[in-house]
């Protein structure tokens, strides 16, 4: 028994292509099952629900004037919010990685708060802060800036909830960046700005783009934080997620799914493009 067992294992070991790390089939199987159950099945459900509609109906629902206006608001707000996050997030990651200061650990932990906080709580808080009588709102009103119940409010809510995406993707890359590269550049006479532009930024660029793209896609789908501060005026400050919600409340599941499918495709397309671009860029750094 024991000899045959030993014989079989040594035979297995000598088989070409046998992996050293065990459990490949099992772990891949579980992962695929999970992806199927949690991601693909609901997505299929989404498409199934719209399948009751004809192409014309589908087209009519997703190009409805009010819905198109919501796309515009959502896209613009998400774009502005993610660009803003790109800049501020890079700065925050820089501060957290490059400097030592009192309370750094606390600030680092606070960075995740927008993720940990229920988005509705964030929404109510922001609405209270920026409403005309709120702590920030009263000063902004004096300056003639209206935030609550305008598209600007949407941008603020989106940027608040998706800032950690940028910080947390840039931070590890920045940590791994050898300071020697910067020292080498400076010793050759490069100015600080040149070092940033030509040495640091090209290395951070892929991570920053990923962070901004994640921030953007998250903003496209943000609901809880936005609706409290947006005011939800049709054609002005209505976001696409709200349109889905409105259709659901009208028990028009097919229309809700149709609009949702547009958001889904936009997000998937964006992630795909970013991944393809990044793969090409990284291949160069790894010398392939």
């Amino acid at each position, binding site marked *: 028994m024991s000899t045959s067992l030993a014989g079989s294992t040594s035979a297995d070991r000598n088989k070409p292509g046998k992996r050293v790390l065990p459990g490949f089939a099992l772990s891949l199987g579980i992962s695929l099952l999970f992806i199927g159950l949690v991601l693909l099945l609901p997505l299929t459900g989404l498409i199934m629900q719209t399948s009751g509609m004809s192409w014309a109906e589908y087209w009519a629902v997703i190009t409805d004037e009010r819905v198109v206006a919501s796309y515009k608001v959502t896209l613009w707000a998400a774009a502005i919010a993610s660009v803003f996050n790109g800049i501020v997030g890079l700065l925050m990651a820089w501060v957290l990685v490059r400097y030592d200061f009192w309370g750094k650990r606390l600030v680092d932990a606070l960075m995740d708060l927008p993720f940990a906080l229920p988005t509705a709580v964030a929404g109510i808080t922001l609405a209270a802060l920026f409403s005309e009588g709120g702590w920030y709102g009263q000063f902004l009103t004096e300056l003639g800036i209206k935030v609550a119940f305008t598209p600007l409010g949407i941008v603020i809510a989106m940027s608040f909830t998706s800032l950690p995406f940028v910080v947390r993707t840039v931070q590890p890359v920045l940590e791994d960046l*050898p300071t020697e590269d910067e*020292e080498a*550049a*400076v010793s*050759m006479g490069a100015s600080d700005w040149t070092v940033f532009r*030509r040495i640091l930024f*090209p290395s951070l660029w892929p991570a920053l783009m990923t962070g901004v793209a994640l921030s953007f896609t998250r903003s496209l789908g943000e609901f809880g934080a936005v609706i409290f501060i947006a005011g939800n005026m049709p054609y002005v400050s209505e976001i696409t997620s709200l349109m889905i919600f409105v259709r659901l409340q009208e028990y028009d599941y097919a229309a809700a799914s149709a609009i949702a499918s547009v958001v889904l495709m936009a997000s998937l397309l964006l992630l795909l493009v970013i991944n393809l671009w990044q793969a090409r860029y990284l291949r*160069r750094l790894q*010398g392939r």
Partner: protein
Amino acid sequence: MSIRLEGINKYFGQFQALKDISLDIPDGQLTGLLGPSGSGKTTLLRIIAGLESAEQGRILFHGEDVTDLHVRDRRVGFVFQHYALFRHMTVAQNIAFGLEVMPKAQRPGAAEIRKQVGELLDMVQLAHLASRYPAQLSGGQKQRIALARALAMKPEILLLDEPFGALDAKVRKDLRRWLRALHDELHFTSVFVTHDQEEALELSDSVVVMSAGKVEQVGGPQALYAQPESRFVFDFLGHVNVLDGQLAQQRMTQGDAWVQLPGMLECSGEAQLYLRPHEVRLQDCPAPHANLPLRIESISLIGAEVRLELAPCGWVAQEPWEVGISHVEFNRWQPQRGDRCYAVPDVGHLFDVQQARPRTLSWVND
């Protein structure tokens, strides 16, 4: 361009990394900073470059005070141990970087930059790799590119931080020879950091031995090896055989071992006798002036000499003794592992309690 350091002190928090270092590095020489890790040699190099600043002291280049001059204005070439090549730039772009970031008034035109990059690539014999990315190069190639990049802005001072530390033995030897040839051709002042004594002695015109933030000794390779001034330099440069013992009436004794010292010495008490491997002979019976019984532990035949590792019999040594004998002698004698033999010193260096510097002793002419 000569480099002069005056009273450099450097602290990292409570830890004093450099203790009152004063040093003159003459123009056009290749100087090695040699020391174990933590001796402060890299810190010193970075202070010369301006990548680190000292709490106290002055740095002068060619008599001119550059202590407060920013690294970007010091115009020194710096080569890093791990090359620090810009990964997202091709080899040619890496080399061109130093020229491209020059102030507008001095910056050469695009065609001139291309020409100079071509010349630098020829100099490091890697012109065929111009459009590759650093990740596609071997370690030795990367270090050559890093060197070409540092030389692009024609610095008069070249600083190298463990330039061959990350390379394998064969490549390291090639590059060492190549750097020496390059230095002789271009005649800049170079300072390089190393922890490899062989590298320091082979490559440098002058070696600065450092330990624990202090300069132990400065000198040419020959002088350092032949006349070490301290126990540290003795231990650090090559192997040394040590006899720890009591000195009384011209005789050093420890257990069964003893050595009769030549000349008239009026010291007594604890002392150490340091003997280089080539200063000791081996024979099968004790000599009239020394009884150092040893047992052969291992025999290494590779190299110009046969190296024997020996364990003391009837006395103790912290590290095994090493003695080199010629292949001819080895073949005549035919020693085996476990054989007993006796060491006979010809020349030795005595450290006693009273003096920090050793006294050189010779038995040959007595």
